[in-house]
């Protein structure tokens, strides 16, 4: 299965270290992702979305403010 979005997103996950991102990327590409690793990625992406949403809200506020 192609993981186009997943690979791009993992590369940019701010809450994981670079080495951890590389390890997980290799697992995704080889299809050898364990259940724990799958959960780890899901948690990291969800946390990132929460961060992005905060930034988006701040930007909207600033736009309204200016």
């Amino acid at each position, binding site marked *: *299965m192609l*993981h*186009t*979005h*997943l690979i*791009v*997103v*993992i590369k*940019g996950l*701010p*809450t994981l*270290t*670079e*080495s*951890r991102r590389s390890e997980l990327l290799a697992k995704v590409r080889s299809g050898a992702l364990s259940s724990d690793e*799958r959960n780890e*990625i*899901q*948690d990291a*992406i*969800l*946390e*990132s*979305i*929460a*961060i*992005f*949403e*905060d*930034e*988006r*809200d*701040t*930007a*909207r*506020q*600033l*736009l309204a*403010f*200016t």
Partner: protein
Amino acid sequence: MPNYKTNGLGANSDPSPEEILSFTDAADDVKNALTSEGISFSERFQHAVTSFRLLTDFRVNLTEFLHEIEEKIDQAKAALMEIGLPSDAIEQRLKTARNERDHRLHQHTFAHYRAMHEGVRARLSADEPVGMTQDAFRRFVLGNGVKIHAWVYEQFANDIKRVIDAPPEQADAILSEVRDTVHDFVIAHSNQVPDDLKPVTTEKIELFFEALRPFAGIDKKYFIPLPKAAVDGMLGVMVDGPQMQELFTDFAKIKNLPREASIRVIVAGKEISAYGSEAVFQQVSPYCAAPVSAHIVMAHYRTDNDVSNMLTLMTEGQCVRATARGNNADVTIFAQDGDHVRIEGLNVSEAEFLKHPMKYINHTFEFSSTEDANRATT
């Protein structure tokens, strides 16, 4: 955050006066600039052009940033589906992630305001200058991105001013009175609270007043330009070389920059490019408006390289307070002479830590002075 380029609208040719005046959002600034007294018309016009460009560029870049971040969110959701999370489960778990983040930010912010309060009071009793102007406080609040703060500030601006302007002996009483006013308003007129701020909890209102408390009734003699050490502490990595670093260790130099100066710095993990001394002042100062004794700047998701550089650029007497990855235990990294640091709270060598700092600490941390860090741990 966006890269505040200054080569947007009007980069190759100055806008005409008609264009300037037709831009409604900039109209007030432009009008003020054009009608200022005591400077020549050409200078006034130049000022108007600069205001127009800055405002336009800021909005253009902010809009671009909004599009980018919305794309990132969509892409992240698509990635979750690729990894087997159905869309209804995504929304459910996102709700939990948002709550957890909100909770962590609250805890962190609350602790920060407490420390700031203690720091300000300590300096007041030592007759050391601290504090910020009302305008700086406003930017500080907005800059923190705490929506409820911005809303309370906007809605109760006159009441907040009463708190800040209060005679010191009445400050606490006036602050309590205003806090009750806000509470009562929120309870009685909850339909006037914007939907995206609901629920406005007591805790959130308390948080705002914790932020305000250090500035209640501060003697005006303490309203000074931003403290030098705060500027030292806010520095992350100076991307334009050592001369820029020297420039930003003295805030007065920022204000004396040539009007045409172009600056690019990384502050709190965000790149800021600004054109002209006024723009630098406007964009950088919110990050160092807090009194030096407490939290100076929060930074998040820097790269290993950025963090290592930052730690080795710090001077003795400064430190970074963070939490350990995994167990969230307190970690303090003290700057030492030269390129060395001393780490408390982690069982890792200095060399390994400096190589991969983000492997060991969470991505949000704050600068502090060694003195304050020691005070906090005793």
